[in-house]
């Protein structure tokens, strides 16, 4: 096989590859969507619960929360 034949084969392979690339690139089912795909995710949580800080919650601490009653308080005496 002559060198010119080999060069011709390489050229034909390159041109066909280029044409295939151009066609495949224009077809949506060949390329993954550039905008991406949505996947459902969820954050994990652990079962551990931190103990309340005794520096904050102790017998001398004050709870400033004011009970809000809308309408009449049915529990009031």
């Amino acid at each position, binding site marked *: 096989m002559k060198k010119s034949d080999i060069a011709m084969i390489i050229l*034909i392979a390159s041109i*066909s590859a280029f044409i295939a690339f151009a066609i495949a690139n224009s077809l949506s089912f*060949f390329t993954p969507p*550039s*905008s991406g*795909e*949505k996947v459902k995710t969820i954050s994990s949580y652990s*079962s551990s619960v931190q103990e309340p800080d005794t520096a904050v*919650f*102790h017998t001398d601490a004050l709870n400033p929360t004011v009970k809000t009653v809308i309408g009449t308080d049915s529990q009031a005496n």
Partner: protein
Amino acid sequence: MAEKQTSVGKRQKIAQSNKTMFFWIAGMSAVVGVCAVLAWFLVQQLIFHTKIANEADKTVSTITKNKTAVEALRDNIRALEVNPGLNAVKAEPDEKALQVILDALPADNNNLALGSSIQKLVGSVTGAKIEALSTGEQIGGQAINSPVSGVEIIPFNMVVTSNDVNALKEVLQNFERSIRIIDIDNYVLDKSDVSYKLSLTGHAYYKPAVKVELKDKVIKP
């Protein structure tokens, strides 16, 4: 003469077969080129879909873990009902101990509730009187950001007066003892002939409730 004709025929046949071989090889190289390109696209698709499948798999695994953790979490939270620290500072005796946690760090930006709490802290001090109180507004100075991520702040400004400076000191001590953390950013103490005036700016905190729900995550190729 006959020998010459035979050799010419042979050469023609060789040239013909060379030509045929060239066309076949050229055709096959074209096919190989197309296949290589298609393979490249398929590999890209494969990588992308593997990424999606891995993420979906991770979600399923997280849901399974969360499902098993929820029972233990419920038990651990229930155990807090008997915590002596929480039970010691219930706002109402018939309230649940867990309510104390929400009293200390509410889940919503409730300015009025903060105002009521401050009034309660100041009002419990004999001789201290609130002259002005505004919550939810940052007046002057630089905006203060929460030092803890996920925790938001509610700013407030207040002016308290008293004839006795110890009453103002007690107000500050009440802020310190409060289970609802109240940080004081700035204060000015003025003394007139008859009374003391304490002008202060500070902030309290709240933490918006966290929702555990499925969220969309975009996977890019």
